């Protein structure tokens, strides 16, 4: 569903991605681990056609994203590291707009409210201006926007940053539910525990290279931790 083939990305002389090939199938949660600057966000941006690859291919649902930008975006829901919204509008109004762009329909108020609730946003906050929201609250609206789309694939760039542990845990449950209904999930994270907990597969990146891929079922948490540190130090 989310696939790259020998993907290269250069920024000038700097090579941010080196021959990355991954394939996230429906019903998988693929966790990308890697230090800051490893190239995780760059990879996500390439899936969204925000950047053009220097070499190789990016496919969503079998379609090249450069040739079919709109079609592939119909299949992806995306939560950025920092969910940014229109501060003068309420969380509900923001959700209403993005959900309308995503689905082409205007969702009724109770549907919007239940989406926000599902994302863990306090019901009393729904009609307040987003400019009064905390980072975590905005993140929750971002989650609601993604969930509203009912997309075949989820692209998540450190989605739990800014969420408190309880909210992060609820989010993990949402992801697991999505996985079970056949959604392909690609998420970047620093959180080894979260990766082991919810991920079905784990990829470790360093300086633009995908060093290894493993099934999370095959490793224990401590094994994953020592493996990760081993790769980072090498």
């Amino acid at each position, binding site marked *: 569903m989310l696939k790259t083939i020998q993907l290269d990305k250069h920024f000038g002389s700097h090579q941010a991605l080196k021959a990355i090939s991954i394939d996230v199938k429906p019903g998988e949660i693929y966790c990308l681990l890697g230090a800051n600057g490893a190239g995780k966000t760059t990879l996500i941006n390439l899936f969204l056609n925000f950047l053009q690859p220097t070499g190789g291919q990016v496919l969503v649902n079998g379609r090249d994203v450069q040739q079919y930008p709109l079609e592939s*975006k119909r299949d992806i829901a995306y939560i*950025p590291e920092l*969910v940014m919204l*229109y501060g003068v509008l309420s969380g509900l109004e923001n959700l209403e707009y*993005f959900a*309308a*762009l995503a689905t*082409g329909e205007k969702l009724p108020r109770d549907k919007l409210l239940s989406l926000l609730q599902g994302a863990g946003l306090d019901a009393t906050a729904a009609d307040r201006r987003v400019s009064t929201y905390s980072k975590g609250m905005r993140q929750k609206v971002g989650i609601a926007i993604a969930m509203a789309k009912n997309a075949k694939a989820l692209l998540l760039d450190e989605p739990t940053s800014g969420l408190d542990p309880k909210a992060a845990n609820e989010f993990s449950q949402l992801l697991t539910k999505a996985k079970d209904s056949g959604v392909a999930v690609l998420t970047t994270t620093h959180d080894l525990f979260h990766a082991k907990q919810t991920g079905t597969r784990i990829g470790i990146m360093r300086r633009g290279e995908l060093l290894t891929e493993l099934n999370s079922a095959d490793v224990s948490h401590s094994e994953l931790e020592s493996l990760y540190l081993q790769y980072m130090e090498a």
Partner: protein
Amino acid sequence: MKSALFGKVFLHELRVLIADRTLLLVGSLLVALVLYGFYNGYQETLQREHAAQELAKKQADKHAENITTLRALLGGEQKPDPFANPFDPASVGGGMEMRYATLPTLALSPLAFGQSDMLPNYYKVTDRSKASFMYDTEIENPWNLLSGHFDITFVLVYLFPLIIFALSYNLLTVEREQGTLRMLLSQPLSLAILVAGKLLVRALPVLLIMAVLPLLLLGVLRPQLFQADQLPAVLGWLGLVLAYGGFWFALALLVNIIGRSSATNALALMAAWVLFVLVIPVVLNIVVGLLSPAPSRIELATKTRLITIEGLNRYHDKLSSDYRFTQDPEVLLPRDGKIEVAPRRQAQFLIQRDVDKEIQRVLNEFSTQLAVQQMLVERFGWISPAIVTYEGMAAIAGNGAARYLEFQQQVDRFHERWKEYFEPRLLNSIAMTEQDYAEMPHFEWAEVPVQVSGILKRLLLLVIPALIVIAFAIRRMRRFSVV
């Protein structure tokens, strides 16, 4: 699907612009500017119309007074004044009767001062040389581009682009800077639709205010606006406002597509404004002045004096004869349809006639200068949409250089008619009758209709650059960077 998304973007942007009060603020500022500009133009037009009425009244009063005097003299109730004798064609044609030739205002006159305060709106026509009444102003450079009066056209040409910038200089870049752009473009929404929706929601209200509000005010205050012959001017006004505003919106679009940051966008747009609205018009003003300098007034004055001196010699005999009425007051009254026109006054008329004839070449230079200046602006004005719009609005308002030039020519021809009417009477000593007073020539301004082709040409000169800018922006959209 596409139009549905467009509608969603449009409504959402409207919601944001209302919620953050941008629309209210910018809209009311524009309304205030339009009202003030309109007020100024309307006052100016009223003053002109008032002045024209005063002149017409003065002319009619003088006429009535002359008839009264004439009747009183015929009835013997009054003694004739040798220098204000209603029977004497020299007195009558030389100022007892005069014609104030005025250029009427048009329905749209309040919208643009144009050349109306640079060039005379009326002339006092008598049988004196036209050098004495048509070319006696001090204005060195009659044609004036972007005069800087605070009229509606000033609001449109100078300030409206700034209003447009305020609304749209950071249309896309702010979304990138705030991080909402990646949220938007992760949806199946093309950049073209997004930007079109954002542009239209900003363009519609301000274009509506700028284009329609002045017409509404005019419609209330000047019902002649609704006459069928005003339709080209009204449509021309609407077209020019939309096209000029469209040009600046197109530029804002381009800058947003190319620009990396809102700050550079603002700088780029201000630079374009300075170039098109300030620099090019000023430079063109200077260039036009250099290419078509004002003819020498000293030459005109010297030449007039020389011809006058020649005339003093040529008509020496007539000039040296005495006024006969001093011995014989009876000559001041008509006898068998004749009146004795004093030879001195005949000589004065002839001198003025000679001045007109021989000075024609110098005078032609003056009217040619205005025509050449206008031609130069027509030829080079397309470089700046501000010039195209300014000139177009002046023309539509009836205050453009071309109409003033035509006015001068019509007055010139009328002056000839006036002199032709009096010359045989004056030289053959034919007494003026009451009947003659009714038949003396009147100045009738023959309107030059607003040229539809001229409006269309100006519209093209605005629309083509706007389309080029838009095409360029669309080409650059492929290279637009979301992150």
